[in-house]
């Protein structure tokens, strides 16, 4: 089972201090490391950020997700990690991206915020599928529109 394809969706609270600029720098750094390391262990996925929170999807072999997630878990740049979903899947849906990114002033991020407000910030009421679909739809839309995903919005 350890080589089976799995998908992880989690939410966490941003704890990066300081100005927007500082936050941007940190996220740039997270993305750079993620893209490099995820590519090396054949992990694909997407990260969404809305100032308050991160939402991330990771796809890959069970053990690779495990190892990556353990690194992410020890990262002091976020806290209150809630796993929404961790399960085997048939196929990847983010195979284009070692780590796609949706920044805070995008439409998707605003929707993310709206969902959060609607659920009263109660992570337990969050549906993993909803986050997943949101990320997926918006990454594809952005790709079609030709906007640079590598850039921080």
């Amino acid at each position, binding site marked *: *089972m350890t080589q*089976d394809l*799995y998908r*992880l969706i*989690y939410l966490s609270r941003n704890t990066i201090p300081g100005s927007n600029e500082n936050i941007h720098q940190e996220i740039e750094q997270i993305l750079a490391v993620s893209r490099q390391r995820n590519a090396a262990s054949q992990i694909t996925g997407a990260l969404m950020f809305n100032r308050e929170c991160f939402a991330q999807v990771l796809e890959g072999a*069970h053990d690779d*997700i*495990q190892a990556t*997630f*353990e690194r992410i*878990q*020890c990262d002091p740049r976020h*806290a209150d*990690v*809630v*796993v929404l979903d*961790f*399960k*085997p899947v048939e196929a990847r849906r983010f195979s284009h991206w070692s780590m796609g990114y949706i920044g805070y002033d995008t439409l998707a991020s605003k929707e993310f915020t709206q969902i959060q407000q609607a659920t009263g910030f109660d992570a337990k009421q969050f549906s993993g599928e909803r986050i997943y679909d949101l990320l997926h739809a918006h990454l594809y839309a952005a790709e079609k529109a030709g906007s640079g995903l590598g850039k921080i919005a």
Partner: protein
Amino acid sequence: MTIVCDINTAMDFSAIDSSYGLALVDQAGKILSANPAFLNLFALPPDVQNKTFSDLTGTMNPAATDFLQQTLAGRHEKAIKQTTIIDHKTLSVHVIELDQAQRLIMVESSPSSPLPLPEINHPAHTPHNAAMVNRTMLSECIANWKPDEPGTASLAMIMIGLDRFKRINETLGHDAGDQLLKFAAQRLLRIVRSDDVVAHFSDDRFAVLQINQNQPVAATTMAERISELLKRPFLVNGQQANISASVGLAILHHNTESTGDLIKHAELALHDAKQNARGSYRLYEQSLQKNASERHELEIGLRRALFLREFTLFYQPQARMQDKKIIGFEALIRWEKPGAGIISPLRFIPLAEDMGKIHEIGQWVLQTACRDAAAWPEDIMIAVNVSPVQFESNSLKQIVQAALTASGLAPQRLELEITEGLLIKNITNALEQLREIQAMGVSIAMDDFGTGYSSLNYLSSFPFSKIKIDQSFVHRMHTDKSRTLIKAVIALGSALGIKTLAEGVETEEQFDYLARNGCEEIQGYLLSKPVPAEQIRALIS
């Protein structure tokens, strides 16, 4: 440091009297010459010339050979410096490439090692510099510790206990449990400082030793960080697993004066943290030692109490509401500990449960109560409390059967009182055992109702013969909340066809209120306090 050494002429190092260890090696790692200090530092014999370090494997500390070989093996531009700890000495080794053929090794030893860590010999190889040591090594580190400077001298022991780890083993399997331990260890190694010592202390316990840091700040900050970090979910075997960690701290000169007490005190603090609030941390203080000593005393006493016949049973009557006629008794255990007087069951029963002693005590209570009751009139019932722990051995049914057989008591006269706690843990198994016991003709009452989770599900999950309303509600009957709850339980009982009994009834006023609201039975000082077996005849006649 400046060492003048003309390599072309002074090939013989044996005369260089320096505190630095000096050795000249050739390309292949063969020792060309070494000074006395070098031989001393590595405990080498004088005749090392023309030998490589691997030739010397048998004579040297293997950690030292490994280290030197690794240091020499690397291709270095000009000079490198490596540090290691061997035989509790911190060694800084400089390797200087003199030319194509020769390299100079200089070794500097600092007398007091800030980190006498036997495991770490290749600090450059692990990204976080820390490795997991075992319990013995942890004790050695503490024993070998010497204060750096008197002012900053401190040691802090952070003892980490994973909460609910046994449950992970039970529900997700031992394989998942092992994985989770591995990840927990890795998380700790990631966040500690490189000079912290991290130990796998026992099954579900880890320990972090902080050396010469600013205390108590460093330890409390770390404790918070650790409990936060271990609360975060783990992914094991395709599933999400959540645990938490409780932390006990003992810091030198903060209630702990001797390094020898650090581990013990940290364990006591951990024990207290676990008891009070899982996922929290606690700094050792003297009262914990006192509590632990008392507990220890009690434990010793409890181990021999049965044998020495220090337990007795008292019986408290239960009566019908309408005419106050006594219809049964509840058996209550009493422990008179020589020299200490009467010990409340509230204190010793949880301890007996922890120790596993509750099985024997429970068996004795059942046997004694059945035997006593067999001598009473046939229409008088006997109620006996059973602890959830007694269900864990899966032999309660046999124990009940044996008590009935030995005493000759009719099963219909025996009632077991259980608490909601039993149904919370492993409801399927508990219900199965209850059904088997009930099938023998014994009835089952729900005790202390209202104090725990009070789920209606529990009441409807089994045909209980009785609901006992906890005495705390009866005592607080003047409050709206208690009155509402009492009324609700009585109504619930009548809806489900279960009798209700109110405990702790002391006044006529309470009695009247309960009677008005349809409660069927009472127990309490208004009727009688618990009495020894000899006084029962007088009470019923």
